[in-house]
């Protein structure tokens, strides 16, 4: 039940967005997903950002450290490497789906032409799902250092 004037801008209508009522199960599920994935990302994304910037520091990032955390392809992985891969795996899946659904909400507000909206979302979904797949493959396979120089693998 909304008391807001339908001619108000989308901004006015969207400042508070209550849980979608009625039988639209997909929108209800997505509404809940945005909130709970957001709360999980609060810890995952902020801890990752803080780790890479405050603890390591951008200017001290090295590929060797990534090899230590992720492990090499073809070698058996250690407990700590398993932890890092699961951590990044959960983060990449939640962040990408959260971002894709967020993008859908934004596109829905601005792209009023249905054909334009559908074409845009199809392209965005293909791109995002392709990159997510790459990210997950990297975490399953591990790092390939076979062609690397000694300076990187040490």
């Amino acid at each position, binding site marked *: 039940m909304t008391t807001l004037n339908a001619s108000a801008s989308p901004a006015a209508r969207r400042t508070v967005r*209550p849980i979608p009522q009625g039988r639209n199960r997909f929108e209800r599920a997505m509404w809940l997903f945005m909130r709970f994935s957001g709360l999980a990302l609060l810890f995952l994304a902020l801890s990752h950002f803080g780790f890479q910037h405050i603890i390591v520091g951008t200017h001290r990032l090295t590929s060797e450290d990534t090899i230590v955390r992720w492990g090499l392809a073809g070698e058996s992985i250690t407990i700590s490497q398993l932890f890092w891969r699961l951590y990044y795996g959960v983060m990449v899946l939640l962040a990408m789906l959260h*971002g894709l659904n967020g993008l859908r909400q934004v596109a829905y507000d601005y792209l009023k032409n249905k054909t334009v909206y559908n074409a845009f979302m199809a392209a965005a979904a293909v791109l995002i799902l392709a990159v997510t797949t*790459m990210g997950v493959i990297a975490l399953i396979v591990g790092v390939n250092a076979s062609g690397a120089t000694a300076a990187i693998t040490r």
Partner: protein
Amino acid sequence: MSALISTVRASLSYRGREGHWLWLLHRVSGLGVLLFLILHVAGMSSAFISIEIHDRLLEMYKTPLFSIGELALAFGLIFHAVNGTRIAILELKPELWQKQQLATRLAIIIVVLLAAPTIIIMALGSINAFFGPAAGH
């Protein structure tokens, strides 16, 4: 296209209170972080193809342009995370709705408390890397 322009104009000129600016900033920061995330995961996942590509991309993270851009990323990520948490808590607990003003102020204070030291530490790290005694090594 004209619908797009008029909606964007309406969003920019709508005179709501803080809530409207928070909403707009939430949207812009979410899109910005998503753009970074797509490029970032495409780059970091290249490690499974060849660590040398990954290594070359990591070196790009140490250039002046990236060092400036990542300050905006830090603010955007922290703002979106804290404000998103405010939204989620308020909407999952409607009994807190009388306290919206307090929640808004609290969120702004927490963003400043988290973002200011983060940005200062990052900026000092970059200044040291580019101009400090070990610069160029």
